[in-house]
């Protein structure tokens, strides 16, 4: 794992990552590897430390120990915005959009972030097709094309979740960190989201945190089960399904029919 051969090097790797909140180890010597192009699902009970891990990967939280390697480089000390500019995008478990901007402008803002610097003081950004055209295309892709001009604050919950994903997508990332993209969605919206993720799969590497086991087992190439900040198991969906420890510690407990 020297990172010299790009084809074999993982897109993302954590090495003995530790994050403590007081006495609680929310991430406990976690070593995780996400291969280029795979859809890697991260599952685990409430409070297992999934969001805490995403926070460290994106740079909002500083780990207490361990390293994070992204695309062959150590990014442990890089601030959030620089990681994003290197191709690491995230969506938020709790919807985080720009309420006073329209849906289109939310996405345009994401496009603009990756279209060079923004020290441009004179031209009207709203009329800049280099921002609005790609933004509109991404909105169409997530199924929000008809809602482009609606203020984000006026979107329905499910639509906000779609917008959340659209913004992450619009940055043209190498790696997508998705924190429960289907949280709070109705069955129809969820199905659409699963369809969309299936389309995205292969084109972009995805680390997916999700409680919906049907979605996870339908989409994932690999699954890691997180319990109390540590990886209980990691493997193919079939292997995870058959794993006795996983069944006992998590799947059984959740009452999921697996």
């Amino acid at each position, binding site marked *: 794992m020297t990172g010299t051969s790009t084809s074999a090097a993982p897109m993302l790797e954590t090495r003995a990552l530790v994050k403590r909140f007081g006495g609680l180890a929310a991430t406990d010597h976690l070593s995780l590897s996400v291969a280029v192009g795979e859809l890697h699902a991260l599952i685990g009970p409430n409070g297992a430390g999934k969001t805490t891990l995403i926070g460290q990967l994106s740079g909002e939280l500083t780990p207490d120990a361990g390293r994070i390697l992204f695309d062959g480089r150590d990014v442990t000390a890089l601030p959030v*915005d620089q990681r*994003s500019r290197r191709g690491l995008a995230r969506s938020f478990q709790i919807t985080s959009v720009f309420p*006073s901007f329209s849906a289109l402008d939310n996405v345009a803002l994401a496009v603009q972030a990756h279209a060079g610097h*923004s020290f441009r003081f004179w031209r009207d950004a709203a009329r800049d097709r280099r921002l609005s055209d790609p933004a509109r295309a991404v909105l169409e892709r997530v199924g929000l094309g008809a809602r482009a001009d609606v203020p984000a604050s006026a979107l329905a919950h499910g639509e906000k979740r779609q917008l959340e994903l659209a913004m992450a997508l619009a940055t043209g990332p190498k790696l997508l960190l998705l924190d429960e993209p289907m949280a709070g969605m109705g069955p129809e919206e969820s199905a659409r989201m699963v369809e969309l993720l299936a389309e995205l799969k292969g084109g972009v590497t995805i680390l997916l945190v999700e409680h919906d086991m049907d979605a996870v087992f339908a989409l994932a190439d690999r699954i890691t089960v997180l319990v109390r900040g540590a990886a209980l198991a990691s493997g193919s969906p079939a292997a995870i399904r058959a794993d006795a420890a996983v069944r006992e510690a998590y799947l059984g407990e959740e009452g999921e029919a697996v």
Partner: protein
Amino acid sequence: MPPLIRSPLAPRVALALLLIAALALPTVAVWAGEPFYLRLGARILVFALAAVSLDLILGFGGMVSFGHAAFVGIGGYVVGILFAHQADGSTLFGWPGTTNGYIVWPLAMLAGGLAALPIGAISLRTSGVPFIMITLAFAQMLFYLMTGLKAYGGDDGVALWSRTSFPGGPNIADHATFYYVSLGLLVAALLVCWRLVNSRFGRVIRGAKDNERRMRALGYPVTRYKLTAFVIAGALAGLAGALLANATLFVGPQYLHWSRSGDLIVMVVLGGIGTLIGPVLGAAALLLLEEFVPEAMNLVHAGLGEHWKIVLGPILLGLVLFARKGLWGLVTGGNRP
């Protein structure tokens, strides 16, 4: 809430009416034999410029600066200090003083912007209440610094006996000319700010006001952009300071006092935060009230005008509660320019 004014004016119509009124004021004042209104009008324009510059960071960037008057004061002191050296023929760091506007006014802007750079860089490490407190602390520091500048009058400040000169340009010693120059600069500043807030740069600072965390996650080095906006606002405030020194023929530490920064915030909120024209209306409203509330009170009972501040407070509170989106929102029905 039901609309309080039945048929609000379209923003463009309101804007045109405002501009016509502003252009006509000197003629009307002369015709009415009340040159005092010309001076009051100029003061309003100057404070409007300062308030617009504050709204750029407060209303669009979400930076609640409680020290904005410091940059106005610094701009004023550039005019005052250079005037003082010109007057007694002394030098400053080996340079002679001057009242040449082509030098002095750009220098006032430069000084405002340069002062805003370190103050912004330090203040922007925080946000929310700490940001308010730090900007306030810096401004008070500068206030005391000016109080201690005995060479420039200390507490008493510097009195000017002539306005800035523009060789080959407008003669602003004439009140009407000074008024029109101030109006021209305010309109130019409004135009620049309007382009600015709608540009890519403007979107970044507006986005940061809405959701700074998400902006970072999208890849924006947010602080850099906010600091740039802070410096631009400081430079515009510096220009307002240069105008203020010329309007009053005086500069003193009180221009930097926290209560002046508070006045600027009141103008922005009263007129309509996050709108560019709002602060202009807010400046006009506050200065007119300050002018006429004491007079009206004296009419009711001689000497009562002394206590005008007790009356002004509730009037402002009432106005802010009545016009939730500010005076500009009241006039235009809440449309943004």
